[in-house]
């Protein structure tokens, strides 16, 4: 076979240049936000909640959720926590460096189905990134939705990502921030995110809840949401598993019969609770 026939190659990434890097959270498990633009006229459209496979050549690939709104066409944005081999390589990048991207992968949040509803977002740690495009889209299409509440917490005030953006958000949405432990100068809630949720107790009436964060947090948040009267099919979350191909072939991200990279990462609790808890 000729190389020219390898054009439609699902494993071949497009190239994109890093145009902006912002340090969100410092420390050992630091988070940086990378804004990239495609080279050679490449690119793709995505939906809120979808992911992309990013590569640093020589180090490998990682599945990262796309943190920019689909309405921003000229760039894509990713917030990456330093956790392992590939993500550390990302943290070593500088503006101007070129990375590989393939995608978009997975499903998205059914944002259009939520018109006329109240939206409650609950994020923790790095889990604000996957739901951030939904928040962005909701803000940009503010009239489509009713009340918007954003719960978000970090371990300490320094661990809160998108701090400036969250403050800006207060003009259009209710923002409830929290830190795990009491700190001097912190005026928001002290305690875990699920506790903050119960404290504010948003109404489940005509409301959709969208949550993402560490697995333990999600578990308690969903429990609390149900206590607040949210129906199972009105609770949405994203799950993550280790991925290598993002194409439903490499065989490791499956939860029961579903490959998270294809059928997920977005699930309603009504669907997710039917699957085995292998995530």
């Amino acid at each position, binding site marked *: *076979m*000729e*190389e020219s*026939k*390898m054009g*439609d*190659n*699902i*494993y*071949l*990434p497009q*190239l994109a*240049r890093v145009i902006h890097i912002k340090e969100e959270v410092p420390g050992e498990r630091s988070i940086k936000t990378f804004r990239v633009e495609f*080279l050679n006229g490449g690119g793709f459209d995505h939906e809120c909640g979808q992911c992309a496979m990013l*590569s640093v*050549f*020589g*180090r*490998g*690939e990682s599945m990262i959720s796309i943190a920019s709104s689909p309405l921003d066409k000229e760039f894509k944005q990713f917030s990456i926590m330093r*956790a*392992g*081999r590939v*993500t550390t390589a990302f943290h070593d990048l500088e503006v101007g460096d*070129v990375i*590989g991207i393939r995608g978009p992968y997975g499903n998205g949040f059914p944002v259009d189905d939520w018109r006329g509803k109240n939206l409650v977002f609950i994020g923790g740690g790095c889990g604000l990134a996957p739901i951030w495009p939904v928040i962005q889209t909701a803000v940009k299409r503010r009239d489509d939705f009713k009340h918007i509440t954003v719960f978000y917490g970090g371990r300490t005030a320094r661990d809160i990502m998108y701090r400036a953006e969250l403050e800006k958000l207060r003009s259009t949405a209710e923002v409830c921030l929290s830190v795990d432990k009491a700190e001097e100068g912190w005026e928001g809630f002290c305690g875990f995110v699920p506790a903050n949720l119960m404290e504010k107790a948003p109404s489940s009436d005509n409301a959709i809840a969208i949550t993402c964060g560490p*697995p333990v947090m999600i578990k308690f948040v969903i429990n609390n949401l149900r206590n607040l009267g949210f129906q199972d099919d009105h609770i949405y979350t994203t799950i*993550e*598993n*280790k991925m*290598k*191909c993002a*194409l*439903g*072939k*490499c*065989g*490791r*991200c*499956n*939860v*029961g*019969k579903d490959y998270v990279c*294809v059928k997920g990462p977005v699930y309603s609790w009504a669907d997710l609770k039917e699957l*085995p808890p*292998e*995530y």
Partner: protein
Amino acid sequence: MERMLAKEQIGDWIRTLRGWEVFGPVLQDGVWSYQPADTVQLDHPNTAQPPKGFAFPQREVFFTFEQIKGEPPRLTPVAPKGGQQVVFGVRPCDARGLPRMDRVFTETFDDVYYRTRRGSLAYVGLACNQPPSPHCFCKSVGGSPVSTEGLDVLMTDLGDRYLVAAVTATGEKLMQAAGDLLTEPTGVDRSEAGRLRLAAITHPQRAVNDVASVPPRLKKGFDSSLWEDLARPCISCGICTFLCPTCHCFDINDETNGSTPLKGSRVRTWDSCQFPDFTMHSSGHNPRETLGSRLRQRVCHKFQYFHENFGMFQCVGCGRCVAGCPVGIDIIAVVNQVAASAGEG
């Protein structure tokens, strides 16, 4: 198309296959494997490894990359080596692995590497007059010792001659190349073949009990404590999956070959759901941490998840994982036990 071929003329047939690279089972160092061959002698039980590597090799280079500092990386896709390959002596169970791999690699996202290799591959099968292994259970999973699924040609051993039957158009082409070597079968040939086929099909085999009820029962038995019990001796090696005609899990890594400029390749290699680090997140969290959860994944993938997704079992009953397991974990017994326990109550 059905024809007869004298056994000693099989080499002559192979020599007529110009433009094809021919492989056949060869015994070397005590191991049966498919090797390039000018002629073949089809007296093998079954090969140690199935022929799945022809379409899905253990190592596939996707592309090479080269990055000179300050310039964008240059990516060069590496195409599979061209040329048509035909494999002789494929057992019907192993051949049925191929259509199952097709579902995985060509549906939803089309894998050009797999499709290219698959497109230039033909299987000439050999019916099993006798089960080659005491752990054969092809009949339990929808196959048979004379199944043609996944084959281009099926040969049946009639002692001093073969009945050669075309299954696909490619198979007919392979047979047409033989010209006069292949002769019209006589009535005796046909009745002899029929007798052998019947004997093969009725030969007793190990069996998965009430296989139709297995997928729902496994689903019900997800939380069964049997999984950990049955997996207790498991040593987490990859024999069961690497010898499987349908296991397709893989890993992707960058292999570098110099840092200034950065040079290397992105490579796919086989991986196994039985390795403890297969599903481990970089945080250390592992959704399938225990031996039981990994055994359950292997068994349920083949007998439940794949069935739910594609309406067929992802097991062809070759018995390699049963025979090859160093510690006696036996997929037939596992399925039967879990399904039976889920059936109660």
